[in-house]
């Protein structure tokens, strides 16, 4: 029998959604003189270690959660001063779009450029101050169910299991955390969220979810190049042939610049390497002018849930809720998900608090959450943005962009049509022999870098002696099917060099370097046969992103 602990609410994941849920719950408890026990488990070695986001954020949710956040020292230091949007037409050319031609939702006046990791560190401090137990380094590995099928809580992973599956001298059994309600806030493609969606059929009425992979690097640039508050977005080169996505470049404070590329995971060419697209993008003059003479401090990547309104699953099930990007609350038309994730958590907290106070007991499904969510501004935002992604997928960046301009600027998202995009991202790959091979330039070591030196500065570490956390349903499939048909795309879509096809005595072998994994979840999403399942490794493993 595993040891267990009881809480009123257990929250999985210390990101903006999970921490906002925790803080709001405790605020409500204090306002009503009630005692609540709330705990947050986080697989990263510390809060913020696995957080990766652009990020330009809207402070709307934070304004509601902590109206005095400025006085309280929240790390929102850089207000946006200038917005630029580019369409890159070739490796050297690009057009800066006049503001009037940019969808309104992409204007950033009043927003802040932040490190989302640092914002989460701050939110965790507030949560602890309010009495929440925050446990970084503990991964929720398993969902626990009551006999009636409702969610009972989670179990943290065992520690000290060797690569052979046997217990080592340091073995420590996982713990059961039981709760009246469990909130899953794992972020994009959470491995428990995925199980819940399947178990309770939460997505039966939704379109297939859509994802992207986002890369981000943090740079230190020379003082004279630094323009704090500048926000640059763009699309076009180097993505081509139906591959969509866009880049960002923001000037923070302290001579820091972040640069990144988002590549939609419905791309069709198996030869595409999102990592190499990002590396060559930085050589475009529009970006290079900001980075030249600077040095790269950090690197990371993370999948993004971007399907929006039409793909949003049901967010409640008996015994728990799904919040933030684990459900998919990101507003793609604004390329922002923090404020919506936080608000989804705050609405969850209000729903949970009422349910706990009315002592109707646990296990009941909080169907009320859907009503409150529908009444909140998140719903309104996501509804207005519902066509943005599908339009780009259907009509491409130019015509889709034009549609979005009309929909967003002239009709404020209320055009009475809804576009759908129902095919899952992993179904889009075409066979390798029908696709154009892409030759990527060698990294120059100044603006562009190779994968391994990049992973190195993500500070990624996993205990080596542990079972592989990237599970293959069919271990033969990569070499038997994926290699001949798609030239095994995992070698290229993985941003950390986890997957390799190596030659051994004339035989190809699929190698998984699980220690390199930066927990982006792209393999779980993009494998054409859905053969790879990402499960949590030992708690505390993974990247240690500073200031990301």
């Amino acid at each position, binding site marked *: 029998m595993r040891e267990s602990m009881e809480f009123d609410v257990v929250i999985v994941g210390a990101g903006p959604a999970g921490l906002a849920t925790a803080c709001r719950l405790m605020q409500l408890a204090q306002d009503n003189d009630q005692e609540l026990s709330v705990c947050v488990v986080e697989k990263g*070695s510390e809060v913020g270690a696995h957080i990766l986001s652009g990020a330009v954020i809207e402070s709307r949710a934070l304004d509601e959660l902590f109206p005095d956040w400025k006085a309280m020292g929240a790390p929102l230091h850089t207000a946006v001063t200038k917005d630029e949007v580019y369409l890159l037409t070739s490796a050297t050319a690009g057009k800066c779009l006049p503001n009037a031609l940019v969808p309104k939702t992409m204007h950033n006046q009043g927003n802040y450029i932040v490190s989302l990791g*640092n914002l989460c560190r701050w939110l965790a401090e507030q949560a602890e101050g309010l009495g929440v137990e925050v446990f970084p380094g503990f991964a929720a590995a398993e969902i626990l169910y009551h006999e009636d099928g409702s969610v009972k809580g989670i179990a943290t992973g065992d520690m000290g299991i060797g690569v052979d599956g046997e217990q080592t*001298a340091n073995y420590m059994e996982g713990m059961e*955390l039981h709760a009246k309600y469990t909130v899953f806030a794992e972020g994009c493609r959470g491995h428990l969220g995925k199980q819940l969606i399947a178990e309770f059929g939460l997505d039966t009425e939704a379109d297939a979810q859509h994802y992207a992979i986002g890369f981000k690097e943090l740079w230190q640039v020379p003082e004279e190049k630094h323009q704090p508050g500048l926000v640059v977005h763009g699309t076009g080169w180097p993505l081509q042939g139906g591959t969509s996505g866009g880049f960002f470049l923001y000037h923070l404070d302290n001579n820091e610049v972040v640069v990144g590329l988002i590549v939609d995971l419905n791309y069709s060419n198996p030869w595409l390497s999102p990592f190499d697209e990002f590396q060559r993008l930085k050589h475009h003059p529009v970006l290079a002018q900001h980075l030249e003479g600077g040095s790269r401090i950090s690197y990371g990547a993370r999948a993004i849930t971007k399907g929006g309104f039409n793909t949003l699953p049901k967010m409640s099930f008996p015994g728990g809720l799904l919040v933030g990007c684990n459900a998919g609350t990101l507003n793609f038309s604004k390329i922002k998900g923090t404020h919506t994730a936080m608000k989804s958590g705050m609405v969850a907290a209000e729903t949970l608090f009422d349910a706990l106070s009315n002592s109707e007991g646990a296990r009941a499904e909080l169907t009320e959450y859907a009503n409150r969510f529908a009444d909140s501004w998140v719903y309104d935002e996501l509804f207005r943005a519902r066509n943005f992604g599908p339009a780009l997928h259907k009509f491409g960046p130019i015509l889709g962009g034009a549609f979005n301009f009309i929909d967003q600027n002239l009709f404020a998202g209320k055009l009475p049509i809804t576009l759908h995009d129902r095919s899952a991202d992993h179904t889009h790959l075409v066979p390798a022999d029908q696709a154009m091979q892409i030759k990527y330039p060698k990294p120059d070591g100044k603006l562009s870098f190779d994968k391994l030196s990049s992973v190195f500065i993500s*500070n990624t570490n996993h205990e080596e002696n542990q079972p592989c956390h990237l599970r293959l349903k069919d271990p033969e499939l990569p070499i038997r099917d994926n290699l001949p048909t798609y030239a095994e795309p995992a070698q290229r879509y993985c941003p950390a060099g986890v997957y390799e096809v190596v030659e051994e005595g004339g035989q190809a072998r699929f190698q998984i370097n699980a220690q390199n994994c930066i927990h982006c979840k792209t393999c779980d999403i993009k494998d054409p046969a859905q053969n790879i399942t990402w499960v949590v490794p030992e708690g505390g493993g993974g990247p240690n992103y500073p200031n990301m």
Partner: protein
Amino acid sequence: MKILVCVKRVIDYNVKVRVKADQSDVDLTNVKMALNPFCEIAVEEAVRLKEQGKADEVVVVSIGPKAVQEQLRTALALGADRAIQIETEAAPEALNTAKLLAKVVEQEQPGLVLMGKQSIDSDNNQTGQMLAALIGAPQATFAYSLELDAEQVVVTREVDGGLKTLALKLPAVVTTDLRLNEPRYVKLPDIMKAKKKPLAVETPDGLGVALKQHQTVLKVEAPGQRQAGIRVDSVDALLDKLKNEAKVI
């Protein structure tokens, strides 16, 4: 017997250290910090001695700003009984650290002082030795194994070319090496319990120690980048390069 364990908050060993742009120090802003690995081994050893019934109290002490309480709480979660923080702005240099710890030893009168052989940030390997000298206690550094009884501690040390075993009269100072033990994982309930264990805050003034500055950091630099190697075709080419380019033969 009471065991005093001295611990330090350092940059986490997984973090790739980066020098600040002005070369004044290593950049620690929002970087993951952790209990120094050698100190963690010292805490583990003390807790094991307590579990074996050879000690009845484990006290941990750390020096630095309020943030060091995080590492003290980790030590408490690992099994220490109570903690002392000596509040200073930054981690003081080795001699000041040893002087402060000497005062704590005077107050606490432990039978054994356990500490890491060095911290992975400054890599000085000085504090244990200085402390032993200041309190006039015998010392065994780089402990590989340790046997404690009421009168003495027998320590096997890692030395160049082998192992050396010493018997020390108590009270004694022992610094730990990497192979002494493998620290346990912290359990969730123990983290919650650790929050309720006593943690006292002292100041250098309160302990009657005046901190003196003996060293000044002039500059911190990242090591130079290593050039990629090249492949030569023949032994002659190699000899030529060694003689004329590298000028080493």
